[in-house]
């Protein structure tokens, strides 16, 4: 099967699921219609419907970029990184002395990293932020002003922001750099996002239906053992069933899917811990019902680089 034909099948499948979800959401909204606005179940249903609506938008934006071509995917994720970095750095208490470092992060580091994806310069793509930016950025802060109060804390926060929001996210469009014989690597982007997001959604569904025991009550009150197990297993099953759109054998697809869902889960926990530390519930307000860009992408941030490197190690010829 050609890449584009597989793409259409997946797209059709996702649209089908969304239609079904929208119908269920509508039916549920009818059931809670008579309840008071501040009633718990009514709020859950309202939030669910807002989430489904946002999914429609996200799916069409992503599918549009994928159909336009690899460059469009790079631009889309560049913008996503921008929104994510903005959310991340908004919550870190940087000082006036960091102004220059922040300007560099947004207007030089971010475009450069995506420029490296654009040109496919793999060697620099993997070390630009972890080596060059890592060492030079703190130096910029010192040059611009002498403020040394909380120096380590402030620099590490900016570096964390760049690693998570720019470096890690850039590995999603970066998958298109891989060379796999007779295979369109853009489909790896679809596979990764599908499995990660399916895992998030399925954990949410399992958690709402059967969730009782909390995994990490201090960090994330909504994550339950039941949701975690059900979500990881069902998303792994889904990923295995999608082996035909990957360069993997079914058992390899199962292993990769399991890995993606696990790293995604850990990503969600780590990013929640940062939010708790900052005393907020959501990263932002960009996506109705979901919160901010990072609330939707926390699991992708962790899953993408690991999926990228394992696939490259075992399957790429470059």
């Amino acid at each position, binding site marked *: 099967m050609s890449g584009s034909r597989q793409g259409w099948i997946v797209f059709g499948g996702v649209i089908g699921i969304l239609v079904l979800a929208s119908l269920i959401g509508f039916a549920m909204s009818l059931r809670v219609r008579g309840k008071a606005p501040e009633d718990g179940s009514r709020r859950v249903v309202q939030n669910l419907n807002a989430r489904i609506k946002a999914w429609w938008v996200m799916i069409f934006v992503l599918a549009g970029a994928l159909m336009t071509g690899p460059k469009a995917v790079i631009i889309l994720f560049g913008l996503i990184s*921008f929104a994510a970095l*903005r*959310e991340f*750095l*908004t919550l870190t208490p*940087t000082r*006036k002395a960091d*102004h220059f470092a*922040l*300007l560099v992060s*947004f207007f030089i580091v971010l475009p450069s990293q995506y420029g490296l994806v654009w040109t496919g310069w793999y060697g620099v793509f993997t070390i630009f932020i972890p080596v060059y930016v890592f060492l030079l950025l703190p130096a910029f802060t010192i040059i611009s002003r002498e403020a040394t109060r909380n120096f380590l804390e402030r620099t590490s926060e900016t570096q964390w922001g760049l690693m998570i929001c720019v470096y890690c996210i850039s590995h999603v469009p970066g998958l298109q750099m891989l060379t796999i014989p007779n295979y369109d690597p853009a489909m790896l982007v679809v596979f990764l996002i599908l499995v990660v997001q399916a895992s998030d959604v399925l954990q949410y569904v399992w958690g709402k239906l059967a969730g009782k025991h909390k995994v990490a009550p201090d960090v994330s009150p909504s994550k339950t053992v039941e949701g975690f197990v059900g979500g990881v297993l069902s998303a792994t099953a889904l990923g295995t069933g999608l082996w035909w759109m990957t360069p993997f054998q079914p058992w390899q697809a199962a292993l990769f899917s399991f890995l993606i869902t696990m790293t995604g889960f850990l990503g969600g926990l780590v990013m929640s811990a940062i939010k708790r530390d900052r005393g907020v519930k959501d990263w*932002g*307000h*960009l996506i109705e019902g979901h919160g901010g860009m990072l609330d939707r992408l926390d699991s992708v941030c962790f899953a993408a680089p690991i999926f990228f490197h394992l696939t490259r190690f075992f399957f790429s010829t470059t």
Partner: protein
Amino acid sequence: MLDRMAAKMTAGAITGFAKALTGAQCQWVGCGPYETQRIYFANHSSHLDFILLWSALPGPLRKRTRPVAAADYWFHGTFKQFLIRQVFNGIPVDREGRKPGTNPLQPMLDALDEGASLIIFPEGTRGSGEELLPFKSGIFHLAKDRPHVELVPVWMENCYRVMPKGSFLPVPLLCSVRFGEPTRLAEGERKPAFLERLQKSVAGLRCA
């Protein structure tokens, strides 16, 4: 004519840019975006403040809301003058000593009498963004002389980090503009108590 067009386009570009840059989250906590005549008073930590507050207002309100700006800073230089006069329709306020026999508040009173709403920063200068400076007394006299005008406290979150004092390039961080509950000068209220109450109403919006 050409002037008006340039001003309109600049205004559109500035509001669009400010919103794209900062997300300009607008929260009407204590009142709605109504066309009541108002004085919006806010904390001041960045040049971005009034641009963002002004951008946060819906179009029809924005048209009749005029920022009060320091004469010594804004009303100098061709471009700054174009911005403040043509685009923002600002009102100059003299921060240095008053000339004998003139009321420095007169331009604001005139604007209020023409039906305009005002944006003022009662701290009088840009602060560090962390703590509010004591309010200057201008707002007290405005409230006393034009008691029918609503006073709306506004908290500008994060602007000082986007463009701190002394920098010219803005960093894109999320900002929010929070509008509080309108108030007025109470019967017999003294100046110090009134100013303190207003300052508290702005500070109180901080973590609402």
